[in-house]
């Protein structure tokens, strides 16, 4: 290493003859910058990579929340529609619908015995008054139709589906 000279900022330095081996000025030096720059670049690349990864995870977080919401909504819809459907299967509804169609109850069943195939009973014709308790065209509290049932369920009247205040 050549001797280091102290230089004053104000004094312009003498021009140094061009040397093919080393082009550095004698009175001031600049340390080689390649290593720090390479290091910083690697750091920058790493940081950018992490940033992109995190951002992707965030995006997926949003997506997940949206899908979960959707799943909840759908299951709630399903439960409500199921409740509306259940209303159609009540014996009151069935009795009403059947009697509207002009059907009457027949308590005298014809039985088929398996596996012999024997038939018991003869399917007697009924007059319509054999089971007066359900043949008397029962009236339902609001005589709903099937559509009313579903629409009922979709509306907000708490009285139709549980009355807790």
């Amino acid at each position, binding site marked *: 290493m050549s001797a*280091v000279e102290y230089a004053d900022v104000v004094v*312009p*330095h003498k021009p140094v003859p*061009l040397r093919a081996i080393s*082009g550095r*000025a004698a*009175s001031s*030096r600049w340390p080689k910058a390649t290593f720090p720059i390479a290091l910083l670049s690697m750091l920058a690349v790493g*940081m950018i990579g992490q940033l992109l990864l*995190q951002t992707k995870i965030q995006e997926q977080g949003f997506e997940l929340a949206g899908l979960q919401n959707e799943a909840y909504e759908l299951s709630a819809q399903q439960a409500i529609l199921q409740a509306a459907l259940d209303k159609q299967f009540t014996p009151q509804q069935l009795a009403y619908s059947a009697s509207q169609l002009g059907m009457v109850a027949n308590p005298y069943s014809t039985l088929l015995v398996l596996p012999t195939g024997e038939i018991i009973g003869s399917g007697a014709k009924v007059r319509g008054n054999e089971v007066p308790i359900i043949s008397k065209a029962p009236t339902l509290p609001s005589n709903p139709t099937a559509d009313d049932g579903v629409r009922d369920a979709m509306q907000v009247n708490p009285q139709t589906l549980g009355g807790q205040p």
Partner: protein
Amino acid sequence: MSDQSEKDTALWRTTLAHPLFDYRVVIATSAVLLTLGLMMVISASSVTAAAQLHDPYYFGKRQIAFAVVGVLGAVFLARSSEKFTRFLGLPALVVAAVLIALTLTGFGVEIGGNRNWVQFGPEFTRFQPSEFAKLAIVLWGAHDLAKRSKVLTDLRHWAMFLAGTLGLVGLVFAQKDAGTALIMAAIVVIVAIVAGAPWRLLMALFVAAIGVVLLMLKMAPFRLQRILAYLDPLSDPYGMNLQPRRGIQALASGGWFGQGLGSSRQKWGLLAEAHNDYIFAIIGEELGLIGTLTVIFLFAALAFSGMRIALKSTSHFSRHVAVGVVAWMTVQSFANVAVATRMIPVLGIPLPMISYGGSSLMANLFAIGLLVGCARREPQAAKALAQQRTKARRQAVIKVSP
């Protein structure tokens, strides 16, 4: 041992003595700050952007675009001659004044309760003239002072300088952007101080400043509330003190090494202006104490080298410009950090080169360009740069010819 330490001090001395030291430091620190800034803007804004605009890189992309334009402008300004740069001074002042005045008219746009934007039609023409006003006062102020450098002992010659610069400050203040106005006033005062302003003048400015501050507080009780909220940290935890509280929480949760880039919790809508005025808090949260100290150090290094450029400058204009840019960068960045760390009440100013904002980023980069220009024009540095170019050519020649 002392031999080694002697050698180390000698190494430092010679490095500092290098004519291109300050030039390279300014470029390096700005580059690092800019890169860091871009990364932090992407990180801090990604949640808000994804939630409200469905593109997490919305703000990041824009910031990169503005950075490119800013860097191009900076390079242009850095390579310009002093004559050309001085020539820009007056037009810059006039244009800035006009644009600020326009914010008060129909072209003005209000965003976030502040009417300090202009827009001429499509969205990308929207910008904040107050940011460019800072550039204008530095350019024109330096030009004016340099013109009158021989007669500045006469206080009357300071009047034009003060009228022009403080007039622009007043316009910005009229926009109700007190924070920016304060920074601009500080730049003016610092430039005046280093330019040698007599004590009488400084005293008069000081008294005037107090008067203005009192007027400010009286005019808008909002500002008083901010000060009161600052003085009593436990008050109004979900109102005025919400942002400062969250800022401190963000910094604290960063600890020594940070949560990791991208892992901020506060940017999930908990900290307002996370990608803007409070981005320092997000840096603290994600990169920890290391990150915050690095940012402070970078700005301090910028100040150091900038001042050295100012003092080495052979022209008055270069010196005033350099001082102005240093004042701008340091005062604004330190003020922003002081707000984020709750050392002063909320001012509403962004962190230079890091906060999101096209206008402020471009203005900051142009300012850096001016500073680099000053550094390049310094005679020894200019010589060294020229030598490097010829050296490279000669080396190429040597290498090529066997």
